[in-house]
């Protein structure tokens, strides 16, 4: 199996296969109340405490749509550079399940609220466009709990009726890296827009993965299988890898791939068929007669357009132009709205005479390392943008050396301390007075006469020895540039 960055191919004795992937991402809409009822959407509540009569499908209960959820879907559509459909229709998707109280899910089948769009992926070997087929609004189901009671399945309807956006990609993805980058990019766009928090642990973002394989260079699509409800990027990649190989094995054995829905078993790291064929689903979609067509005006859409913030692709372009960042640096800084906010705040706090490169290095280097270690989001950073800006300025204006800065940084973490104060308190200010340094160096040369002679005779390696001695004698505070200059002169 080949797994290099731009190609994901499965090789067998005589054939090489390409993997074709499409994703149906289910993103929970950020809203206070549910799509068709006024119950709370808050995560983590006691079971069945956020369930209204509508959510539990009591007789005679009717859905009434939440305007904010409609706006969120349209904003997301704008973020995906997609066509917004001024008229869309809610349909019922009929099937029986314990956590589906109505016996149908209200979704949009024929006429979704958002049509075709695109997402741009920044891959190491350049940009790649992934087509978006559609985005539609639908209700989430409740939760079946199978492991609390040995005899029964318990049902919690807190999630029942929460608004979801289903974002369907075209089968444009080809590698596991693209899948990961695509999910991250979608998540990033929605977080910029504030339309989905993208929290995969809480189930705010999950995906059904469509996988098919075909001979390399073939133009036709193979039979696809849909792997349901995968809730992490890692599991998506594992599931795709297993599934693609399973399909290739079937083809190689001359067998037929059934178009079916499969489940990814995390423990066994395999996919398996979810339902027998004779019980094949026939969802009997039809327009929900309790709801009229959803119509939005141009003004409504334009008003939403005016609220759209600068999105990652535009921000990246601006960062490159305005701050002279490399594409790589810019990609990292715009990948998450909070990171970009932090970065821009550091820049603004640095004031005039700023060293942007240095700031970028400190954010993506030291700061990211700390966040990673402590498992924190940048919004929870122990060091504020203001203090990080001060630290970078202290280095830039020569008050401290980079080495001392690292010591100060460590001290700043505890309680977001002001680096200026640490410098003063601990007397860590860099020694840049040439007279003081000359005296210090004179003493070192005097103490190491023989080595000085050896250096003069051509043993140039010894220069480093003198620099080290000088730094040591200054307690690390000596300005390294000045030390170099003085040593060259004196030796």
């Amino acid at each position, binding site marked *: 199996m080949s797994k290099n960055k731009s190609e994901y191919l499965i090789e067998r004795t005589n054939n090489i296969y390409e993997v074709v992937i499409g994703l149906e991402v289910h993103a929970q809409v950020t*809203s*206070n*109340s549910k799509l068709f*009822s*006024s*119950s*709370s959407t808050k995560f983590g509540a*006691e*079971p*069945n*405490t*956020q*369930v*209204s*009569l509508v959510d*539990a499908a009591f007789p005679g209960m009717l859905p*009434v*749509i*939440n*305007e*904010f*959820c*409609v706006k969120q879907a349209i904003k997301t559509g704008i973020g995906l550079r997609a066509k917004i459909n001024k008229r869309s*229709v809610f349909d019922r998707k009929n099937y*029986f399940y*314990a956590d589906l109280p109505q016996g149908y899910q209200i979704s949009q089948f024929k006429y979704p609220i958002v049509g075709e769009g695109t997402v741009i992926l920044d891959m190491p070997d350049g940009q790649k466009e992934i087509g978006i087929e559609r985005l539609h609004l639908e209700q989430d189901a409740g939760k*079946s*709990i*199978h492991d609390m*009671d*040995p*005899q*029964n*399945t*318990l*049902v*919690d*309807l807190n999630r029942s009726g929460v608004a979801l956006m289903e974002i369907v990609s075209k089968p444009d993805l080809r590698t596991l890296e693209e899948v990961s980058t695509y999910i991250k990019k979608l998540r990033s766009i929605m977080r910029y827009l504030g339309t989905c928090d993208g929290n995969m642990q809480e189930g705010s973002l999950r995906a059904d993965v469509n996988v098919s394989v075909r001979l390399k260079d073939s133009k036709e699509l193979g039979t696809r299988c849909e792997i349901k409800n995968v809730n992490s990027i890692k599991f998506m990649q594992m599931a795709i890898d297993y599934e693609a190989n399973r399909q290739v094995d079937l083809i190689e054995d001359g067998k037929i791939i059934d178009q079916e829905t499969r*489940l990814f078993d995390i423990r066994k790291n395999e996919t398996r068929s*979810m339902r027998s064929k004779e*019980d094949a689903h*026939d969802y*009997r979609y039809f*327009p929900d*007669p309790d*709801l*009229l*067509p*959803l*119509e939005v005006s141009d003004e409504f859409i334009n008003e939403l357009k005016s609220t759209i913030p600068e999105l990652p692709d535009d921000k990246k372009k601006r960062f490159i132009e305005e701050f002279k960042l490399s594409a790589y640096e810019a990609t990292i800084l715009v990948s998450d709205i909070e990171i970009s906010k932090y970065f821009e705040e550091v820049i603004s706090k640095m004031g005039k005479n700023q060293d942007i490169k240095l700031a970028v290095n400190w954010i993506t280097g030291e700061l990211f390392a700390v966040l990673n270690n402590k498992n924190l989001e940048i919004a929870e950073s122990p060091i504020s943008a203001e203090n990080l800006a001060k630290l970078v300025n202290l280095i830039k204006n020569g008050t401290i050396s980079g080495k001392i800065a690292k010591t100060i940084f460590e001290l700043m973490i505890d309680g977001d301390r002001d680096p200026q104060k640490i410098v003063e308190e601990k007397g860590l200010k860099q020694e840049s007075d040439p007279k003081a340094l000359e005296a210090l160096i004179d003493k070192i040369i005097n103490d190491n006469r023989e080595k000085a002679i050896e250096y003069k005779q051509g043993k140039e390696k010894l220069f480093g020895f003198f620099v080290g001695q000088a730094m040591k004698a200054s307690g690390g505070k000596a300005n390294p540039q000045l030390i170099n200059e003085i040593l060259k002169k004196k030796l």
Partner: protein
Amino acid sequence: MSIDLKTIKHISKLSRISVDEQKAEKLAEDLSSIFEFIEKLNQLNTDKVEPLTSVAETSLKFRSDEVKSKNIREQIIKNSPEDNKDFFVVPKVVE
């Protein structure tokens, strides 16, 4: 049009209504006569007609995004057939 037993069994499965042989035969007979009556629609040419879903000629009205429903778990669960104060209970589902 006549509806056969196989079709009856298929739609009874989709409807989650169990049918035995006797019931299936009666249903096949009833539905066949009903569909014969329905077939009359085929006399009409409707190629250029827009389907009518609702006679209410307005568009959907919006609700504002406010949480108004409180915790009414007791009310919600009260009518359920199984005794459990926190959850709805169904026979074990094996996925």
